[in-house]
């Protein structure tokens, strides 16, 4: 009951902060930034290997959040709205860097059933970082962000089939990489 009341209180506080931030109240903007910056930097880091570049993208995302805050009508969660902006900003960055290339070459993927419970977050991120950009982006969008294939296709300007095949291959490749990580760490632990 206490946690439920706390959530309601936070929600009310967030609404008040958003209203103030819409009027360019810098203090309210700072509070909102503090609330979501660490989470959004993590989101940007899914797509961008370099942490500093990820931070720059996150700041650009927040800049767009605050300059377009009047467009937020309160429909859906505020976090979800910010998250969408961050994802678009990250993809835009990758396009500018010409890293956003969807590879149609099939990579040799072994069908490996992988249990990730024993892996650390950093290992998972490292495994994701090693994926080709196209595989990585489609996998993160689908598996972590929860986008549908038609949404991914529209966002990345590819076909749904390409999105599905990229996901399939990304998943297999990642499982193989994680299995290799797991073997190495298990061996090292022993």
């Amino acid at each position: 009951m206490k946690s439920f009341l706390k959530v309601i209180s936070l929600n009310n506080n967030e609404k008040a902060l958003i209203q103030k931030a819409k009027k360019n109240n810098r203090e309210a903007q700072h509070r909102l930034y503090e609330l979501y910056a660490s989470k959004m930097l993590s989101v940007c880091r899914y797509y961008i290997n370099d942490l500093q570049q990820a931070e720059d993208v996150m700041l650009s995302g927040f800049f767009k959040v605050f300059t377009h805050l009047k467009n937020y009508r309160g429909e859906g969660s505020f976090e979800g709205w910010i998250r969408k902006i961050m994802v678009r900003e990250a993809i835009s960055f990758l396009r500018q860097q010409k890293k956003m290339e969807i590879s149609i070459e099939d990579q040799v993927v072994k069908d490996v059933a992988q249990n990730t419970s024993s892996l650390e977050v950093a290992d998972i991120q490292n495994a994701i970082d090693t994926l080709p950009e196209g595989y990585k982006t489609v996998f993160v969008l689908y598996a972590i962000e929860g986008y549908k294939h038609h949404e991914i296709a529209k966002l990345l300007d590819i076909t749904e089939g390409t999105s599905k095949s990229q996901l399939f291959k990304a998943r297999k490749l990642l499982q193989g990489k994680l299995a290799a990580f797991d073997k190495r760490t298990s061996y090292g632990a022993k």
Partner: protein
Amino acid sequence: MEQNKFDNEIRTKLGKRRLEPSEGAWEKLSQRLEAEEGPKKVSPILWMGIAASLVGLLLLVSQFFNADSNAVMDQNTPIKVVKTPLNTEVETETKKDVPAVKNEQDNLTPKASLNAVAERLVKPEAPASNKIENPIIIQESIVLDESVARNPLPGNKASSEIADNTSDFEAQKIEDIVKNVQAVADRQQEVSDAYLDSLFTAAEKDIQRQKFINKTKGTVDADALLADVENELDESFRTKVFDALKSSFNSVKTTVANRNN
């Protein structure tokens, strides 16, 4: 199902991750936001306030300057007030003079009455010049008069001499006209308007010539110019003489007729 499990495990683990931004990150973002917003917009109410205060300031300044000009006028006013009684005195004097002349006309001989008329025609020029309405000019003339009284200047002297010469010449001309008219009356001939006109025209021309000669001889002086303008403002010499003669001609004619009888 295994694929969903794999995805969920990765989502759960990465979803819990938090990466703290660097220390200067917010400052960078804040500066970008400041630059985007630009200079803070001044509310319309503030603009209206500024405009109202400007209008108020202008009104105050205009009031101040008006007060100053009024003060200047106030400084002039006493002089005007002082001058007014003088004018009234002069006017009363002239008013007194007129009936006196009329009385004299009743009792004097035609010659004497003609002389009196001639004197009256010459004298009124002085009070007429004092009737200028502009107080500033009056003040200047007063100041000039006072300064002349203290330190008579040669230029003023010359101008007064010129004025005296002109008035003497005018008096002489009037006397000549009166003599001519009297001579015609003595011969019991009727004085026609054409004859009078010719006399006036000749006298006027002579006076103008005399004035011109005086001007060319003398130096240009502010007082002389002012007197010239004042003379222009007055009735013309011809009109004055004509009016005077018209008013006294009947009485002269009657007197001459009685004497002949």
